[in-house]
């Protein structure tokens, strides 16, 4: 009996030590002075314990990687949209981050109400699509549920007016490339958006919708991340294909990103704090990607 207790104790100590060492060893975002630091979450608004656990993990990492904002890749609130739902599915899970002054910039997903654009915490300023700038990074946020000619014209105008030395990052809900078995790539959107991204030099695209994490190998020079598992999860739903650079479908996850000069550093973190993907992208035109 005593032996069993000792072995159990040893196992617990070992697992804690291993978990700590993995975090310490794998956590390698440089936290450079003056860098742009943000997190990315998608398909999170369930109000279920898993969403709260991911949010708590984000706050834990915020202590060592003080990101200043979060990009939300859509499906910010599933199901009901009452004032209580906004508390349960957004304000409470992310309370620690909100209290720390972290800002959230939302894109609308297919489960979202267009009137979320009036919700000040989402920083959409009443617009279904909008852009904002942080340091040398220009973000373009689209409503991929309703890509009408007006939105396309707006996007072209905004991209054309972005500074030539800025990073250009687009994010929206539906992935142009996805190896998720449930939805897969949004090919019609791709035929319309990809030429625009290429024409105006968009470097990185973030999406959600399929409830897994995937990093896609560069497609026509553009890097694609899909993070659709920050609340929802379709375990085992990722069917890795030739285009998959890395993926994770065993648990919930979120992304942390840092941009400094021509370098973009990223880490995908699981709900339990494991680093499931990481690497560095050098701005296309300057060099290449180093995945780990």
């Amino acid at each position, binding site marked *: 009996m005593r032996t069993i207790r000792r072995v159990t104790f040893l196992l617990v100590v070992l697992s804690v030590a291993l978990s700590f060492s993995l975090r310490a060893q794998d956590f390698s975002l440089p936290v450079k002075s003056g860098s742009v630091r943000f997190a990315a979450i998608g398909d999170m608004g369930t109000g279920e314990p898993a969403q709260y656990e991911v949010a708590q993990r984000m706050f834990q990492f915020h202590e060592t990687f003080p990101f200043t904002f979060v990009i939300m890749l859509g499906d910010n609130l599933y199901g009901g949209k009452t*004032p209580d739902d906004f508390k349960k599915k957004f304000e409470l899970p992310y309370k620690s981050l909100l209290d720390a002054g972290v800002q959230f910039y939302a894109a609308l997903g297919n*489960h979202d109400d267009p*009137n979320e654009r009036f919700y000040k915490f989402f920083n959409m300023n*009443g617009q279904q699509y909008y852009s904002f700038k942080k340091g040398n990074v220009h973000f373009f946020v689209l409503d991929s549920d309703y890509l009408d000619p007006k939105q396309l014209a707006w996007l072209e105008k905004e991209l054309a007016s972005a500074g030539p030395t800025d990073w250009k990052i687009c994010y929206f809900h*539906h992935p142009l490339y996805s190896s998720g078995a449930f939805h897969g790539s949004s090919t*019609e959107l791709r035929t319309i958006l990809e030429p625009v991204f290429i024409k105006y030099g968009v470097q990185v695209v973030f999406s959600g919708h399929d409830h897994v994490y995937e990093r896609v190998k560069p497609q026509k020079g553009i890097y694609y991340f899909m993070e659709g598992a920050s609340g929802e999860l379709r375990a085992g739903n990722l069917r890795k294909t030739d285009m998959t650079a890395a993926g994770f479908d065993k648990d919930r996850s979120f992304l942390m990103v840092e941009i400094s000069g021509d370098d973009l550093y990223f880490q995908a973190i699981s709900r339990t704090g494991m680093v499931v993907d990481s690497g560095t992208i050098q701005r296309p035109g300057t060099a290449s990607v180093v995945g780990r």
Partner: protein
Amino acid sequence: MRTGWCTSVLVFCAGIILIPVAIGYQEKAAPTAENPTFGDFSQRVGQYLKLRKSAPGERTTKNQEEIRDRRRALAQGIRQARAGAKQGDIFTPEISEQFLRVIRSTLQGPNTSNARKTIRQGEPVSTVHLSVNGAYPEGLPRTTVPPTLLLRLPQLPERLAYRIVGHDFVLEDTEARLVIDFIPGALP
């Protein structure tokens, strides 16, 4: 005074006679799926917007109760102003016919598999009962409207959007979250 009254009556009568003539002229422009004119759809949408013009503008707030209350008040005002509105007031049979042609050629013709896939990926809902002036079904996912379809339809002003709900094609007021009109069974 009397002359002014007579002039007004004459102008009104001329309007009654000439507007349908003008509309008829537009409709006779031989619309096709490739080159639809959509009749007086834009005028009808314009009339709707005039009717809701006096509604207070939205503003951003952290208070969800405020957003909800404004939406409810706006919806109530529109319902009162459009009391008696019915299916087909905006999507008249003539206008519906042109929309149907475009919808079907976008979704059923050759090389349309991507557009159909867009709808499937948008988690389409099964049949939902819709009514004009009724609330847009709450909590349901927004089925993605294929962008290749949006490219071929008349552009809508802000606050209005086309929606796909089950097999129905819907015109929605996105602020009031009201069904303004719909074409039943428009989607294959």
